[in-house]
């Protein structure tokens, strides 16, 4: 290159400039340009790799979702409360029907024939969907049974149809129907939880949707040589085990339902059963109820109203309102003024603070003046309770005494305890409504509304403190009350209420568990024991106890009544309406269960005196009578109880008269022999019937019982003994689940066979009794 071109040769050989320019070319085209392109490749392939790869993958992979089966919900004993079964969704692909020139009418006809009314499918609708040519996805029916889906599959295969296909789906079943409806909740058509545990634990229950991912070419078919398929298994949802016991739940519902019927309760009712030592919810019911398997359906009464409505808009509004009402979990979503049941809280703080003790005495003259109030606070007993001990004041549910106790505690201390018991929340809600919630693991919990600190502390106006002392002028949820009362009787510990015991996977491995959580200790163990002892006198004292109708023979039960007037209703000038309630716990010395029953607006028409003592207490008593034996709490009967305890009739048919009489005598029953024979050919009532102690059993020795029928007499207001004797004369028998503690003051409130019904000889009628001495009738 350094050679010097000379002469003629210079024209035939490249000159220096040419070589220089070529060298320049070599550097530019052979080196620099390639370095630049290398940099560009690095940018596209490495820097932008993730972005571009994602773009490529998004078009190359076809995904198909596989629905996961939802987890099961169990009660605390492993009974299945909610379960999912595999179902299928039938889908049309009209675009494919066009593409493969399939017969839309034939497809629509066949699909309609197979699915039909069972799934609410009609030909016109299906045909309209099948002819929506732009669409690839038209759902015809969801939750189709596998056998029906199989018939469609057969049709597909026989006719080589592409335009209709099936996707996995599932359907939720609730074996107990309406049982624990508000706890369990329900799922929508897409299997998403909409209420209760189904909603709150939706993430755990719903599992993970599986996917089939495969590589496909631009036409959607598989790639030649590239066999890329990936399965992400659908993970079955976790199972949820509740603290709720289906049996306890059943008893709660049964007796609450009965109470709603007996007292003609207008505005719904709620009951909660809680283990006071853990905060675990054993049962929770809100009425009116609904069937989880058909949660959209409203009650017959509501349906009648809807049917009677004029136009569709009104119908829809009525339906929506009825549904909202039935889905509402009154036990945690509605707030109310607790009334006298709250006296347990006032009592507990007063004992804990030492401002009162069992030797304190209170005078009730029927009313008491309160600073800042123009009218004095009246006791429910306008005549006044006179001088009372602390225990008597609680037994009497004396408002005057509790106003005094509240003032002894003082506004600031009272307020501090109200917060400690979980009725208000100063820390996060200082300036607003002070709303506090228990934080239970259920959807839809409401919170309390309380006085602000400034109003409550006003030393010139003690009316708030006075009303609050007996549970008025603030509102809380039933759940908040039972949680706080549990703290009063369990040794002083405010527990965090919970419904879910544990979440487990398909293999039973525990994924998460709710352990009993102490929020704080509010009162001491010792104070708690004193509170229990006093409250036991409310139920256990057959004379003074306002809660004695909750008594169950053989069991130690404590509790407190409550009757609160609905202030809003009063202000509106209408007839007085009440929420009556009772909260009870048993056994009184070592509580294993606390039950709160709340009846919203019993009817004035039933003739039964509206109060917690007359309606709430007997309802809770009946619940305890079933639940305590179920829980394995051994009864210990007093002598009176033994004397009035119902007896089970032994089967003596076929025995000689002597043997039969002896057998009856053994259980405390007597016999009347009809006929001339030596052996018992028939007995009334038959073996295993439960009748009142001392009943006379009819033994037929050869003779036939009279075919004549008797007319059931009206037993209402009779004492147990009177009713028994009256029935005995007619060859009828009596039994009761109520406890006979004071036979002379307890009277029958209702009977299982209405008066006037013709009945056969030997029929057993079941009655309920309440203590209804005139002195005890009051709104306490």
């Amino acid at each position, binding site marked *: 290159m350094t050679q010097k071109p000379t002469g003629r040769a210079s024209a035939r050989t490249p000159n220096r400039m040419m070589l220089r320019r*070529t060298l320049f*070319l*070599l550097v530019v085209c052979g080196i620099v340009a390639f370095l630049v392109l290398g940099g560009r490749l690095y940018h*596209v392939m*490495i820097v932008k*790799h993730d972005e*571009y790869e994602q773009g490529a993958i998004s078009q190359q992979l076809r995904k198909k979702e596989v629905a996961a089966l939802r987890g099961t919900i169990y009660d605390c004993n492993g009974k299945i409360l909610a379960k999912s079964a595999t179902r299928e969704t039938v889908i049309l692909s009209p675009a494919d029907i066009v593409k493969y020139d399939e017969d839309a009418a034939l497809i629509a006809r066949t699909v309609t024939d197979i699915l039909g009314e069972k799934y609410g499918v009609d030909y016109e609708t299906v045909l309209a969907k099948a002819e929506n040519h732009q669409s690839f996805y038209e759902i015809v029916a969801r939750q189709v049974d596998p056998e029906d889906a199989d018939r469609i599959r057969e049709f597909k295969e026989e006719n080589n149809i592409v335009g209709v296909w099936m996707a996995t789906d599932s359907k939720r079943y609730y074996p107990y129907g309406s049982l624990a409806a508000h706890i369990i909740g329900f799922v929508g058509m897409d299997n998403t939880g909409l209420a209760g545990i189904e909603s709150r634990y939706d993430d755990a229950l719903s599992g993970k949707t599986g996917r089939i991912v495969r590589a496909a070419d631009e036409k959607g078919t598989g790639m030649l*040589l590239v066999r890329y398929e990936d399965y992400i298994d659908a993970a079955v949802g976790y199972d949820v085990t509740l603290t709720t016991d289906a049996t306890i739940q059943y008893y709660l519902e049964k007796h609450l339902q009965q109470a709603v019927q007996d007292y003609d309760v207008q505005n719904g009712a709620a009951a909660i059963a809680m283990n006071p030592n853990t905060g675990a919810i054993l049962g929770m019911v809100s009425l009116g109820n609904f069937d989880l398997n058909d949660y959209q359906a409203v009650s017959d009464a509501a349906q009648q109203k809807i049917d009677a409505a004029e136009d569709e808009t009104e119908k829809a509004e009525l339906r929506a309102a009825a549904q909202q009402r039935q889905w509402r979990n009154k036990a945690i979503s509605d707030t109310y003024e607790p009334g006298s049941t709250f006296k347990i809280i006032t009592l507990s703080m007063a004992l804990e603070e030492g401002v009162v003790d069992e030797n304190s005495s209170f005078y009730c003259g029927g009313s008491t003046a309160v600073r800042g109030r123009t009218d004095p606070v009246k006791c429910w007993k306008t005549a006044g309770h006179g001088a009372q001990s602390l225990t008597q004041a609680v037994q009497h549910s004396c408002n005057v005494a509790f106003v005094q106790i509240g003032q002894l505690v003082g506004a600031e201390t009272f307020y501090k305890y109200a917060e400690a018991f979980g009725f208000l929340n100063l820390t996060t809600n200082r300036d607003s409504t002070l709303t506090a919630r228990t934080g239970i693991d259920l959807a839809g919990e409401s919170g309390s509304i309380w006085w602000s600190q400034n109003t409550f502390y006003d030393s010139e106006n003690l009316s708030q403190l006075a009303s609050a002392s007996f549970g008025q002028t603030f509102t809380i949820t039933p759940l908040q009350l039972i949680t706080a009362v549990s703290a009063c009787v369990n040794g002083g510990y405010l527990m965090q209420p919970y419904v879910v015991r544990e979440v487990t996977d398909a293999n039973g491995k525990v994924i998460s568990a709710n352990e009993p959580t102490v929020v704080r200790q509010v009162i001491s163990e010792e104070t708690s024991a004193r509170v229990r002892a006093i409250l036991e006198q409310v139920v256990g004292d057959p004379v003074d106890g306002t809660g004695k109708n909750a008594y169950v023979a053989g069991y130690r039960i404590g509790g407190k009544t409550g009757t609160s007037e609905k202030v809003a209703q009063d202000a509106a000038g209408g007839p007085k309406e009440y929420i009556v309630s009772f909260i009870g716990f048993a056994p009184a010395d070592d509580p294993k269960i606390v039950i709160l029953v709340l009846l919203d607006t019993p009817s004035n028409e039933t003739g039964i005196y509206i109060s917690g003592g007359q309606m709430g207490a007997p309802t809770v008593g009946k619940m305890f009578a079933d639940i305590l034996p179920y829980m394995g709490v051994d009864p210990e009967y007093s002598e009176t109880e033994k004397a009035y305890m119902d007896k089970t009739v032994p089967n003596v048919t076929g025995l000689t008269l002597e043997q039969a009489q002896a057998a009856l005598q053994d259980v405390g029953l007597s016999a009347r022999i009809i006929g001339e024979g030596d052996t018992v050919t028939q007995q009334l009532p038959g073996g295993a019937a439960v009748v009142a102690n001392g009943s006379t059993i009819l033994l037929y020795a050869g003779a036939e019982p009279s075919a004549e029928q008797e007319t059931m007499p009206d037993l209402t207001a009779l004492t147990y003994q009177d009713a028994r004797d009256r029935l005995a004369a007619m060859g009828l028998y009596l039994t009761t689940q109520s406890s006979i503690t004071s036979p002379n003051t307890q009277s029958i409130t209702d009977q299982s066979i209405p008066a006037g019904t013709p009945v056969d000889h030997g029929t057993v009628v079941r009655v309920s009794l309440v203590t209804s001495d005139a002195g005890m009738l009051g709104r306490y």
Partner: protein
Amino acid sequence: MNENIRRIPRRAARPEPAETVRGGMDFPLLALTLMLLLFGLVMVFSASFPSAYYEGHSPAYYFIRQAGFAAFGAFLMIVCSRIPMATYRRYTVLIFLLSMAALALVPIIGTEANGARRWIDLKVFQFQPSEAVKLAVILMFANMICNTRAQMKTFKYGVLPYAAILIAIIGLLALEPHLSCAIIICALAAVMLFVGGMRWQYLVGAVGAGAALIYVASKTMSYVQERIAVWRDPFGPAIGDPLYDKAYQIKQSLWAVGSGGFTGLGLGEGRQKFLYLPEEHNDYIFAILCEELGLIGALAVLALFALLICRGYWIALHTPDRYSFLVAVGVTTLLAVQVLLNVAVVTNFIPCTGISLPFFSYGGTALVLQLAEMGILLSISREIPARRST
């Protein structure tokens, strides 16, 4: 070292060119060419089997045809390397006129595909005259520059005749139309005139005029505007947007290239060739290569090309004969322009235009002529005087 191959000394004395004295072929050039040829064949198979399959052929359909072209091309390369450069020069004008004639025939008897009339059906295969014209221009310009000698610096002799030829070629290509080929020939012609001694001011003027033309086109012609819009943002247009279809190919190409990463999905494992990326075995085969072999494979191929191009210029620099020198520069530049433009298009570095990748893209005429050009380059390498002493 093979005895046919000689080391060429850096500072070899330049004797008078003796046409009778011909040495051995340049081994590095031959080796690089064969390596690229084989590499290209393998990639054609990998990239084309899905298309062959979907079109109803045997999966190896394109591969077998390309292998046939490669065999024929290799044979032609050896033949071309045996022909002395003097012979080429003697027939230059004839070759040029025949090529031009063929090109002129295309608008009349050519067969059409994808809206362009570029091929003449020779029954055995489709001949593409525009490919031949590239070579003809190299030979013709080299010959003209040698004849023009010192007058290269004048406008009348150094610019006008070449411009006239170019305008004629561009006119014929515009009838097909074959824009990318026109661009390549213009670039090639500019480089040859630059090396041939044209005044750099003219060259700057020509480049400036070209740039101005592109600028005006980008402002006035909607077709050009669309290409530029798509180049700037291939992912922008959504389905339904008229630009979506135009952006589709470059988007698919970027997804293919980007999917490669460092090591790629593996030879044959690419997915974009399954009807996603159009022209995956022709103009966009490099995208499939990137997807399957990753950055490492792509850089390896670029390195082979870079070495081949450097070797081509290196041979030119050592060629004593001016005509041979200019042909070597032309052939190498043609190779370089095609490789660089193709890779730049596939990676969306420049707006897209249809340029094939030498040795890789499927296509008979291009491959055969490419190998023939390498044969000419080899023939030139044999004229480099051997080092006298070792």
